[in-house]
């Protein structure tokens, strides 16, 4: 229903313009729509719930996540996201936010892997704790510059592997990430596609995830965004919080370096 509502809104906006104008004005209309809702992005509800979850003692060990080390030391949430993914010495690997969160929930709170990854993507009547936690953590980096390191050999490796996956063509349709995201000004239907190889585009795209998706009525994380891209690419399904997702995220995050982080945002 939500999707239909927005579609009608967009269609009405489009109807007013001549067809030739339609292409550019769609973006303007979406921008206007964003502005209408900007003061009340529903993502704030996720952020608040996430903060509560972060601070609530839970799991078999009855502890909160407040001692979780997201890379800037135990309990430091402020600014943690703009430096992720990064290498973590304690596990000797590069992790993105959701992998690290899963790690903390298992190691600190004593949850099983299954419990820690339950409902990664929420739906009506079945909210996701992960989407809420991620909303809270990412919001704590708002206004800060993306500063992702590839100095550690494993960080560099994740970036390079991510780049390979970005250009990997396969599946029934021969698509790669690059098919849609390596040229300026491309659109699928009326949806504009960021060129991830162009710094300004990569920054604009990366710094606005997670986002409250009006069409889905949920805050969606970067994990979900990539999951959805791979689905449309006709690729098989990536495992939740897997290294393949972290590698691609590393490639995207590094390309967005220097951009001012501004999410959870609001999207179609």
């Amino acid at each position: 229903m939500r999707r239909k509502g927005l579609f009608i809104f967009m269609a009405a906006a489009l109807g007013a313009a001549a067809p030739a104008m339609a292409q550019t004005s769609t973006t303007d209309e979406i921008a206007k729509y964003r502005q209408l809702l900007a003061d009340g992005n529903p993502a704030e509800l996720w952020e608040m719930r996430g903060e509560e979850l972060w601070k609530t003692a839970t799991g078999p060990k009855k502890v909160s996540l407040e001692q979780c080390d997201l890379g800037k030391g135990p309990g430091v949430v402020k600014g943690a996201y703009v430096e992720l993914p990064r290498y973590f010495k304690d596990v000797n690997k590069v992790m993105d936010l959701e992998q690290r969160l899963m790690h903390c929930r298992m190691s600190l709170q004593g949850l099983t892997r299954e419990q820690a990854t339950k409902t990664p993507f929420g739906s009506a009547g079945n909210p996701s704790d992960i989407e809420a936690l991620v909303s809270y953590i990412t919001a704590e980096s708002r206004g800060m510059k993306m500063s992702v390191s590839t100095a550690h050999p494993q960080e560099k490796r994740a970036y390079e592997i991510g780049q390979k996956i970005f250009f990997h063509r396969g599946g029934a349709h021969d698509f790669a990430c690059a098919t849609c995201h390596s040229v300026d000004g491309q659109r699928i239907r009326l949806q504009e596609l960021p060129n991830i190889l162009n710094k300004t585009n990569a920054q604009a795209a990366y710094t606005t995830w997670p986002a409250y998706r009006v069409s889905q009525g949920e805050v969606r994380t970067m994990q979900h965004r990539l999951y959805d891209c791979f689905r449309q690419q006709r690729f098989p399904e990536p495992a939740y919080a897997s290294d393949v997702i972290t590698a691609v995220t590393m490639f995207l995050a590094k390309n967005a370096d220097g951009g001012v982080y501004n999410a959870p945002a609001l999207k179609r």
Partner: protein
Amino acid sequence: MKRIGIVLAVAVTAAGCATMAADTDYGKAALDLMKADFKSKGPATLDRIVNQDEAQRLCSEYPTERPKEVAEKIEAEQLKLVKYPADGKYLGKWQEGEKIAQNGRGMQSSDKVGSPNGGNCYACHQITKEEISFGNIGPSLYQYGKLRGQSEEILKYTWAKIYNAQAFSACSNMPRFGHKGILDEKQLKDVMALLLDPASPANK
């Protein structure tokens, strides 16, 4: 001019080889990671991404620019793979072709195995004046048939282009609709009619 072209091609090939040693490692690591972390679901199977065919492999290796001889090799090989319609008839119904051009379903992990696939042509191409929601990854096909007519040459070329886009343009972004079994012969004929039938809205 020709000589410069050849020298450049050789230089590009040599550069490609020089960086190979370092790249291969990440390429293999990427493939291993995909094998470990992706799972087949519905029609979207793992073998489709880890067992790339030669064109997919070369296009991944040379994502943006590629030596002329690599491109020519891909195009020649792919052209050989085109199967023309058995009955020699190229045009079906444009009305059905329009539905196929609109339909973006098919072969995603969320789709049912065996359900009919769409072509989703509008995702990348303008085709008719009526549909204003079209993408721009491919060129406009509005008045495709009106501008080109229906000669045997045009029929064969258009069929082959939809069947296997890489027969004419190595590493084209366009899926190989016939070769990969995305669209069946009847569907291909219907899409042909959308582009070439004088009664089709594409040619109005």
